[in-house]
């Protein structure tokens, strides 16, 4: 009820303002150019008791700042050439120096096969103390992305813990989880999924 009253009062006031504006053109803001009439003339001029709301407020519209960053520097295409570490990773993977650990669905515990793979990798790390290691946790596509990012973190860390327990300095090993963002096999069957549930070992420089 009070709201209704307010509306009436408001409508009436607005009506008054509009009428005043129509009667005293000099009162108009100087900025606004002679704007075409919006309210029907008969409403504003001659029927004071009809509170037709000709509330023509003007809004200045500009496009707001956007997140798009303008490119100010000239574009340069850069191509990466393989570094020694990348070459080393290729060789280490081919020859089985470093072996990834694979996991069961929605699991981060190490199977006997995963333990054997990590033991072999730890042996190589022990003999090549000039290198550090990044362990990437990966998941198959069957879960949800956000939960799988957390699951991948747990997988990478279960592999790290195992290698550290075999005598490798924990400071030599970093972990990252890619969840299901970077599958090794893009397929959508169990064979692909099994390949994608892994802790992937990558050699990095000191």
């Amino acid at each position, binding site marked *: 009820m009070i709201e209704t009253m307010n509306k009436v009062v408001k409508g009436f006031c607005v009506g008054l303002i509009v009428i005043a504006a129509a009667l005293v053109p000099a009162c108009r803001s100087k900025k606004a150019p002679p704007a075409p009439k919006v309210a029907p003339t008969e409403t504003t001029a001659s029927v004071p008791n009809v509170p037709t709301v000709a509330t023509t407020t003007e*809004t200045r519209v500009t496009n707001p700042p*956007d997140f798009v960053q303008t490119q100010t520097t000239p574009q340069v295409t850069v191509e990466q050439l393989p570094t020694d570490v990348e070459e080393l990773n290729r060789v280490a993977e081919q020859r089985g120096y470093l072996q990834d650990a694979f996991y069961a669905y929605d699991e981060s515990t190490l199977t006997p096969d995963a333990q054997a793979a990590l033991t072999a990798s730890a042996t190589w790390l022990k003999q090549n103390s000039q290198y550090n290691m990044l362990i990437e946790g990966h998941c198959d596509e069957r879960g949800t992305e956000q939960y799988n990012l957390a699951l991948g973190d747990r997988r990478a860390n279960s592999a790290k813990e195992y290698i550290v327990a075999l005598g490798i300095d924990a400071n030599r090993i970093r972990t990252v989880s890619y969840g299901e963002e970077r599958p090794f096999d893009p397929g959508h069957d169990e064979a692909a999924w099994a390949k994608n549930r892994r802790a992937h070992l990558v050699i990095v420089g000191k």
Partner: protein
Amino acid sequence: MKRLALLALFATSLHAQTQIRPEITKQQAATIVRIAVPRPETTLPLDAIEAPFFGPLTRDLAASGVFAIAPIPPNIPPNADLAKAAGADFVLALRITPDAQDDIVEARLVDPTGATQFGRRYRGTPAALSRMAHMLANDLVREMTGKTGIFLSQIAFASNRSGYYEIWLMDWDGSNQRQITNHRALAILPSWSPDNDRMVYTLFSGGRSEMYIINRRGGGRIHVQTGVGLNVSATFSPMSNDIAFVGSIAGNPDIYVVRDDSTNLRRLTTSYSIESTPEWSPNGRQISFTSGRSGTPQIYLMDAEGTNVQRLSFEGEWNDDATWSPSGEEVAYTSRVNGRFQIRIANVITRQSRIIAGEGSNEQPAWSPDGRWIAFQSNRSGRWQIYRMRTDGTDPSQLTFAGENKEPDWSKKSE
């Protein structure tokens, strides 16, 4: 609405005006306002206003859930006669006038008695014509419902169409898609700040995942330093400068909160299980999250300090991606049903839930700021794309087509 039209016809204008707002507000969900929208009176060539202004305006109104556009009989000027002839509750009389560098848009809502119920003038350069159309549609929806429309809201998402996953933006209707990060790495999980000015996301680079904040007013990107690993699923508090996220120490992912200036790190969960995917309630008092503590991923709620944990989801053996409706009454989440993910909406108090079934796997729901729509990602086309549907599952439409697109987050405001 019939009653409204009758009132408007037979009562005095004073009467009609005092009745309109309460009448509509009470029944806003059930009431559809019939509106006739003739093309604007203008000296400009029609094609200068059709695509930038009239098209977006009529699309917005048709999708508003508030207005139904009435077909217009020919050769009647845009006044009360047209409202009567079209059987419409209102005629939207539009005039576009060029003025120096600007275009001026005048809009009046005229009812069948000839009374003007709404009048507003918008001024801007021709480049701002689309914005004027969306502003007008927003204002018209607010006039009828008391709540502003969503036609200036935007959806952030991750897209790999450039060759890498980067953060992108689009308008609410899928138009104006643009890339806003250029890391050439892996940038995902964008989340809006409550004031629409900032966005937080996770960047994977150099074997690390870190959170960054960008501001649409410039100033470069800010690295949120937490001292813990993972740093994913970041989300701004609606009430403070806090960011909730998933952090991890030694393989134990938990819900953490950190201030946007990298100070005041707090750990909210302490369970040894996996915790992920935090989201604040609209009043900032609660946080929903996913936990594997029962053996499978399920949705839980807790107070914003980490206390008073309650389980929300009991159906299905994998639930994730919980997100609160703007009213705070419901939570939408991803729920596996018969081997496929679907969007489920649960009432926070009663715990009753319903599935919005669709083709393919459907994940990562995001509410529109008015609570009428849900954006989500689906692989129903064979690749991940972003779609939008009403909260009852009707009117689905695909918003992205190039590359793969995922993780939609709808801006909290429409401006």
